[in-house]
């Protein structure tokens, strides 16, 4: 990671604050998803020291494992749920804790798969965060309505038993409807597009006041939707 990535991580951690839980919406250019996902993971695993779940839909989980190893981000606190690995015929090898679902076509089964992961793999009570790489990648395999329903169910499953952060990484310019669907659930919205990152990471990398448009800090905690 370069200095800009490190600054972005500090920006994200500062934006999340101490007590955030529930869905947090990240507005990210589609070409930057992998980079920003890695930065978010580093912030949550190393800075906030949370345990988490990472669901791979866009590419097999081995690629994120490789990136994390390269950038010295430990895998001990992270469990993968791979929805594309068995579908992609990719022969890349890695060694990380992972469960698989057969294909990305039936995302309605993902929450059940998460619930059925044994405590040795994922203890939902202590799961500090759960993120998906990425929501838009579900659209070629599922209708928009299915993805929207999945999103709501996923957030409910992940937040039902603890103070889990659910980062939702979406490109507002490329997929406005999906962004709005995520926004309707989110407790925070963090702008990670190019200009916002440049502003937040300028001043020699120091964390500056961040642009967080709080949608409703209390709505999610109160269980309202």
């Amino acid at each position, binding site marked *: 990671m370069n200095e800009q990535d490190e600054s972005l991580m500090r920006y994200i951690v500062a934006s999340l604050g101490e007590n955030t839980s529930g869905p947090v919406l990240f507005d990210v250019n*589609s*070409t930057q998803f*992998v980079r920003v996902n890695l930065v978010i993971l580093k912030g949550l695993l190393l800075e906030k020291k949370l345990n988490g779940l990472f669901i791979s839909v866009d590419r097999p989980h081995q690629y994120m494992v490789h990136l994390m190893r390269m950038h010295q981000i430990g895998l001990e606190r992270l469990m993968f749920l791979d929805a594309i690995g068995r579908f992609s015929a990719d022969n*890349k090898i890695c060694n990380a804790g992972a469960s698989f679902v057969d294909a990305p076509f039936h995302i309605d089964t993902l929450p059940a798969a998460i619930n059925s992961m044994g405590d040795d793999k994922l203890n939902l009570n202590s799961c500090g965060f759960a993120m998906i790489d990425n929501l*838009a990648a579900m659209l070629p395999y599922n209708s928009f309505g299915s993805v929207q329903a999945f999103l709501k169910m996923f957030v409910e499953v992940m937040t039902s038993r603890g103070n889990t952060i659910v980062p939702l990484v979406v*490109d507002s310019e490329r*997929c406005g409807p999906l962004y709005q669907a995520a926004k309707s659930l989110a407790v925070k919205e963090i702008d990670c597009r190019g200009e916002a990152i440049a502003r937040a990471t300028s001043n020699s990398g120091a964390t500056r006041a961040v642009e967080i448009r709080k949608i409703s800090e209390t709505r999610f905690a109160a269980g309202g939707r």
Partner: protein
Amino acid sequence: MTTCSVPSGNEIIRISSGIPGLDPMIEGGFPFPAVIMVAGTAGVGKTTFALKYLSEGARRGEQGLYFTTLSEPTQWMLRYASQFKFIDPEMFGDKIIYSDLGAMIRDIEPADLLNIMEEKIAEVMPQRIVIDPISVIGSMMRGNYRAFLFDMANRLKNWNATTVVTGEVLPGELYPSDLGYAVDGIILLLMAEEEGARRKYLEVLKMRGTDHMTGKQSIDINRNDGIVVLKSRF
């Protein structure tokens, strides 16, 4: 239930090629992620194409990674490249990382080369990658080159980048056939002798998921823009 109107997010992401006149021929730019082959004979502009592609990305804030297979030191590459006005030498080492594979590809096993490339990609996390030229690897590598090309193309896309690979061909040959099946797009740079002069053309032969323009388009290579598709000027 809300319906997803355009843009739904299900459309292919596209990034600008940086070549004036080319993007309108391919619905706005290269698919992202993808592997695009630029093929042509010596001197037809393949490296210029690749440099412009990376420079355009750097200008847009995207990270670039340039794999050369020629064992050419950075300073020599830059000495020639800097003659183009679109090249900013300060991009190199920052927004464009230059990586020399030339010394490694002699007698290397395909899996080992792929690992070396992936280590660099994981380190740099580029959105734009160039491999220039890919043909050299085929002539030097031990083992199954076709399998290497297939695995390489598959993995490059999973790294979330659009890669331009350049392929050198002999006069009369269109493109390296062993790579054609593995890539998502093929762009030919052609040279033809007409009325005593050598004229250059660009042709989009294949671009997956894209309603692309067909037929040869005249191109010019100049110091301001690199390669320009001339038809777009009129």
